[in-house]
């Protein structure tokens, strides 16, 4: 069963066709990778799915519900959360507070209840804090809970972003180059982590340039080039696909 279905999605910037007529599905409980050369339109596709950009044409269905045209926070509310290629942790907030923002969609205190610090909001705050600490524990970051998030080492910032997205308890997680800037050991750990997240029942759609990571963990791979889908298959088949090889070798030539 498909948790995400993208149909004929297109988006251009001025004269540049960043994503053109892309269709694919993501199976529930799987890891699907999205690869392609720089500028292929991968991040743009993520932005279209998560509500940061509006498609020119086409549709995005999440659990058979239309989500294109929704605002990012509405998409998040439906159970789809994401990380960013360029880390976007909240400045001047601790790691724990960053993760606690992830619990936002699972809590309810609004302006009035917050202003009067009602007993139920106090209980809710406590629950948010405990659940966030659990998640930090799961990812091995609990020692850094009170450090300012943007002061962490780069690799830890990537994990903190992942933790924040996980705190939303999403059904589908979009990861935009989670291993970018990580060393080999960290990349391997990230791969394990992503596999564990899938095993928890969370579907993952991942953009990544690190081929060993992609080939190892993904169930299926889509290849994008100049905004168009040129392949969509299991890893073994992708490795043999001549079109894909041409695109990647062509890139090396340049």
């Amino acid at each position: 069963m498909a948790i995400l279905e993208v149909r004929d999605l297109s988006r251009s910037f001025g004269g540049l066709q960043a994503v053109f007529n892309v269709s694919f599905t993501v199976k529930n409980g799987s890891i699907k990778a999205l690869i392609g050369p720089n500028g292929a339109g991968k991040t743009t596709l993520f932005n279209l799915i998560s509500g940061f950009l509006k498609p020119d044409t086409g549709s995005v269905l999440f659990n058979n519900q239309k989500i294109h045209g929704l605002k990012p926070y509405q998409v998040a509310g439906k159970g789809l959360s994401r990380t960013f290629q360029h880390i976007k942790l909240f400045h001047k907030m601790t790691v724990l507070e960053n993760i606690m923002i992830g619990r936002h969609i699972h809590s309810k205190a609004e302006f009035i209840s917050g202003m009067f610090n009602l007993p139920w909001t106090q209980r809710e705050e406590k629950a948010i804090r405990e659940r966030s600490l659990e998640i930090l524990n799961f990812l091995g970051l609990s020692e850094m809970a009170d450090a300012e998030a943007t002061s962490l080492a780069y690799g830890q910032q990537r994990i903190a972003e992942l933790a924040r997205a996980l705190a939303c308890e999403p059904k589908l997680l979009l990861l935009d180059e989670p291993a970018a800037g990580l060393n080999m050991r960290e990349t391997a750990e990230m791969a394990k982590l992503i596999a564990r997240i899938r095993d928890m029942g969370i579907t993952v759609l991942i953009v990544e340039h690190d081929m060993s990571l992609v080939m190892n963990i993904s169930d299926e791979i889509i290849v994008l080039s100049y905004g168009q889908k040129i392949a969509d298959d299991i890893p073994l088949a992708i490795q043999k696909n001549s079109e894909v090889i041409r695109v990647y070798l062509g890139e090396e030539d340049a």
Partner: protein
Amino acid sequence: MGHQRYLQILGLISAVIAVQLFTYYTDTGHHLTQLTMSAYYSLVIIGLCLLIGYAGQISLGHAGFFAIGGYISAFLTTHNFLPYKDNYFISFLSKSGLLASREDLYGGQILIFHPWAACIAAVLFAVIVAYLIGGPVLKLKGHYLAMATLGFGIIVYKIVLGTEKFGAADGISDVPSFVLLPGVEITGKLPVRIMNYYVAWVIVIICMIILLNLINSRIGRALRSIHGAEDASNAMGVNTAKYKLNTFVLSAAFASVAGVFLTHYNGGIGPSEASVMKSVRYVAIVAVGGMANLWGALIMGVLLNFLSLRGYFGTYDDAVFGGILILIMLFAPEGLLRIDLFRSLKGMFLKISDSKEKT
């Protein structure tokens, strides 16, 4: 966490009482007048602190909201509605007890709004204006946001300055006192100076508690996340547009309430309350207080307003605030209370000697 918050409030309450007792025993009770006014100005400042420091949205137009509150309540409580008493709407208001008869200075009968009705109308109007302009204004960022709010402030200023009914350059005077409860009235009259000092500070303390609760709640955290990385906040499910708008409206409400009360306390309001310089001054104080620091904003709000109202800055009043703004932003953008002066100064000298070496 919670305990610390209440201890701080307790400290504030003791300080308020201690200051009053001090002025009583040293026979310096006249200072209470400026302390009362500073308290009302501080309401604008702590509201603005929530908006700028926590939600990260600058406003250079909050004097506009202060003026809307002050002017509307001043107008409704001084303008004679007697000539319109046959008007359907006015007679309806009159029958519902929202209007009151009063003798004017010359002994004639005039029909004016009850201060409570005027107050509610004024704050409501400010809130509506904030909602209407807040929607499109808060979509803007950086310079665009600054200029749009500045533009709003100037529009309010030009309107009160150019409107005869608002007294044009003279403003509105003879605003009556505001009877909050039987026996408790907001007025500048000397015999009730001490009571008014406490009234103002009770209002400030209540507002402080509300805001402290808010910033320590889920909403406060969401606001800080908007400041920290708005996109990411949205991706985490925070309705950033709504939260920014609510905060803007809340801070506008604080400013208008301050405008209403201070106008009754002073017995009038003039166009300078709506001026750009006032808006800038509020921002300056928030900056000195440390941006995301409600206590800093309150302390600096009281201190700087008090010094300014007592005339310590003389004719250099505006220059002092301009200078404060620059110095703080150059050397201690995190605010005075966490001053990192030494490092910035060193950085500046290194830079200068650096560029000298190069040439």
